[in-house]
Every structure is written in structure tokens, then in C-alpha cells.
């Protein structure tokens, strides 16, 4: 596999990650959101493996495998079990309408391209071009957390944001040290369990996972 071909495949993966980030932003149904999130994790894992293969940094294979198990299998499964248990079926309500969200998203992509342009010029890594995509994924995850009302979608937004950070680490410096990555992975897993407990509490207290309800904490409002 020549370097340029690997770089091309890597940029295709980056494009797909960006596409799934937008998919997460515009998708209404919660199960489809989960699928998209799993796909994003899968593209991330492929991209990491390619970078690992080309650069010969073997710890990237381990983090790629970690991504596969955690973000493609375990986390979507936990969220799926939660959704199933809490019987969440209805369409997700958004604060801003979807075409508007898309336009804001495009603006964010341009912004992050502008922001990373100087870094990209200084860097000599093969993956330097994907840094803008990684930053855009972070921003889009943040935007998703802001524009959605539902607790589960906000968590998916948070996890997508983390995907973006991971991708940024791979594209800017060929990955974080192994210890840090293991720590982050463990954190995510713990976070998923804590989310689950929170979901149960929110839904038993308010009979819904709409976080707007949490604005009324006082009684007799």
C-alpha cells in the first residue's frame, strides 16, 4: 500500500466521519442515531488502523481495537438497552429546526477549516488535512448537545464529541500515549454507566427524558 493511497483512504474515512457527524445532527429517530454513532466509531477505527499501518506505530492498532469494541459494540449496546428499558419511542424534538441546524453546521465546518489552516501548513504529517475534520466533528457534537432537548441524544452528542477529540489526536500527533488512551476509554465506559443511572433517575422523577423539565426544580411553579 503506497503512502498516497493510504492518505486517500484516510481522507475518505475523514469525509465519512464528517458525514456521520452531520447525520447525527439532522437525524430525528433515536435508533437511527445509535446506528449512525456506531458507524462513526467504525470509520474512526478504520482510520486509526490505517494511520497505524502506515506510520508503524503499533499502539495505534490497540487503540483502534479499543475503539471497535467500545464505540462500535459496547456503548451503542448499553444505550440500546437503556432506550429499550425506558421505552423511548417518540421522535426527538429539536430546539432549532433542522435546515437551520444544517446551515449552522456548515458554518462550523468552515470555521474549523479556517482555524486549523495555519497548523496544517506547519505540520508535515500524512494526516494533517484531517485535523479540520476532527475539529469540525468536535464542534458538531457540541452543536448537537446544544440543539437537542432529549437526555439520550445529548449523551450521543457528547460521545460524538469525544470521537472528534480522538480523531484530532490521531491526525495531529499520530495518537496519544497508550496510558492516556486507556484512561480515556475507561472513563468513557464509567461515564456510560453513570449516564444510565442518571437516565433512570430523570425518567422516574419527571416521567420523561426531556431536559427542559429540569428547569423546574422548585415545587409549586
Amino acid at each position, binding site marked *: 500500500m503506497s503512502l498516497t*493511497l493510504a492518505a*486517500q*483512504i484516510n481522507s475518505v474515512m*475523514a*469525509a465519512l466521519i464528517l*458525514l456521520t457527524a452531520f447525520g447525527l445532527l439532522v437525524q430525528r429517530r433515536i435508533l437511527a442515531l445509535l446506528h449512525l454513532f456506531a458507524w462513526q466509531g467504525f470509520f474512526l477505527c478504520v482510520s486509526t488502523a490505517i494511520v497505524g499501518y502506515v506510520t508503524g506505530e503499533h499502539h495505534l492498532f490497540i487503540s483502534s481495537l479499543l475503539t471497535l469494541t467500545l464505540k462500535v459494540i459496547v456503548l451503542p449496546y448499553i444505550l440500546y438497552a437503556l432506550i429499550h428499558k425506558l421505552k423511548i419511542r417518540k421522535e426527538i424534538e429539536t430546539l432549532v429546526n433542522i435546515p437551520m441546524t*444544517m446551515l449552522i*453546521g456548515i458554518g462550523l465546518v468552515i470555521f474549523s477549516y479556517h482555524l486549523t489552516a495555519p497548523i496544517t501548513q506547519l505540520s508535515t504529517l500524512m494526516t494533517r488535512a484531517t485535523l479540520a475534520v476532527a475539529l469540525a466533528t468536535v464542534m458538531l457534537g457540541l452543536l448537537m448537545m446544544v440543539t437537542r432537548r432529549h437526555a439520550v441524544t445529548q449523551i450521543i452528542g457528547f460521545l460524538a464529541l469525544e470521537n472528534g477529540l480522538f480523531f484530532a489526536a490521531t491526525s495531529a500527533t499520530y495518537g496519544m500515549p497508550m496510558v492516556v488512551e486507556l484512561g480515556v476509554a475507561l472513563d468513557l465506559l464509567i461515564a456510560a454507566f453513570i449516564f444510565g443511572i442518571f437516565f433512570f433517575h430523570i425518567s422516574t422523577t419527571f416521567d420523561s427524558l426531556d431536559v427542559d423539565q429540569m428547569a423546574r426544580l422548585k415545587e409549586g411553579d
Partner: protein
Amino acid sequence: MIVYSFAIEALQLLLLLLAAPAFAGWVRTVKCRMQGRSYAGIFQPYRDIARLFTKEVILAENASWIFRFTPYLVFGVTVMIGGIVPFISTDLPFAATADVIALVMLFAIIRFFTALAGMDIGTAFGGMGSSREMMIASLAEPAMLMAIFTVSLAGNSTSLTRMVQVMAHGEFVIRPSLAFALLAYIMVHLTETGRIPVDNPSTHLELTMIHEAMILEYSGRHLALIEWAGQMKLFIFSTLGIAVFCPWGIPASNDLLAIIGGGALLAVKLAVLGVILVLIETGMAKMRLFRLTEYLGSAFLLATLGMLSFFILE
């Protein structure tokens, strides 16, 4: 030599006129087969058009010249577009006269006059169809232009022949931007040719129809010309997609053998494309009119992402 290339141009126009109904018939046949209905064969559109030509034209009393003029304009402009899109050879004398932006504008002229003719008679259906068509057009056109700009960035030119040559004979590079542009183009293709998630091509007298509502008052040879032009539009949009996104096999010279080979390859590609179209149509339900902003918004988003990823990743 110049006479010879004009002969090739004439051959392309002849092919367009003759093959367009067959392609429409092929799509209908595959669709019927897929849905377990009996079908009339791929030559049924020819019979329909021939029958309509022999029928008498019935005009409404208050029809103005616009109503009578529109079918000829629609037909003429469609044939003209067919002369510009290089699908049997890239060495066409007409192809140099207009680039893709002009092509989009020519489609806009057709739409403008069809919408005017729809309102000209003053029936409720016509006006409704026209207003819907214009709403959809205002959303579809930016997406179409964005998709085309992405491809012209990759091809370094807005001229169709140049784009096809760069794509077909240049170095092969995997380009994510073109994949995005292709997805956006497919969505716009379905919109512009009035197919299922947007409009239903086989419906008459239904409250949800768009294109059929505008041409409801046409009869006889007028209707024949409009239907024929519609089939050519489907053919042109498909060949335009093939020429831009999958041009391998379109010959760069006017060598007759190469053209015959290219034509055979084009037929195969069109047959496959027809099946893909039918798969999309059978797999999807018609969308509510007000969901179309989201559908076409996504097409615009995809096209813009394509353009951005050209700058970011390539």
C-alpha cells in the same frame, strides 16, 4: 472534418430522440416487474407518443399564446440540452457552446415556461402545480449548482467536455468530494425528473401531484411533445450523471468504432442506472411536501460538504 463532427452531433441528437422513450419504458418495465405487476414492455412510450400525435388538440377558450407556445419551447430546449451533454463523444461542436451553468439555466427556462403555462388556463390544479414546482425548484437549484461546482473544481473547468476528459483520462484519485457530489446529484436527479420521494410520475388527478398538475390541460400533439421532452429530460439527467461521475468509456475522438463501443457501454450503464432508480423508487415512500425542505436541504448540505472536503482533504 467539421462536417464529420456535425454528423456525429446529429447522430447523438437522433440517439437522444429515439432512446429516451425506450429508457423511460425500461424504467417502467423494471418497476412493474419489481412490484409484481404486469407490464407493457419497453416500447410502450413510443406507442403512447404516436397515439397522442394523431389525436386532436383541445384548447381552453382563454388559453393565450404562452400555453400554445410552451410545448414547442420545452421540446426544443430539451433537444438543445441533449446536444450539449457529451454522452457519445467528447468532441462535439455544440458542447463548446455552453457550460454546465448555462445548462442549469436552460433547465430553468423549461421550468419557468411550464409553470407559466400551468397558470395560464386558470384552473386550480395548474396554479397549485406551478407554485409547488417553483418552491421545489428554488430549493433544488442551489443543490444542483453546488454539486456541479464541486465537480468542476475537480475538473478545473465548468465546461462539460473538459470535465469528462479530466475524469475519464486523468489520473485516478479517490475523491471524497465527488462521492458527496454524486449523492447530492442523485437526490437532485430524483427531484428534477419528478420521481418518487418528491413527485409521482405515474399519477394523474391526485392532490399530491406536481408536474402532472401543471400539464393537466394539455392534449394531442402538445401533450405528446411534453411527454417526449419529459422522457428526454430523464435520459439527459441520467447521461449527465454518467458523463460527470462515471465517464469511463466515452471516447475522446470521433472514431466510429470507439463511438459504437462507447454507445454499447452507455446502454449497459443506463440499464444499470434504471434498475438503481427503480430500487430507490420502490424502497421509498412519497414525502410530504413540507418535508421536502429537509430532503433538498440535505442535498444542498451534501453538495456543500463535497465542496468543503475538496478544499480540506484534497
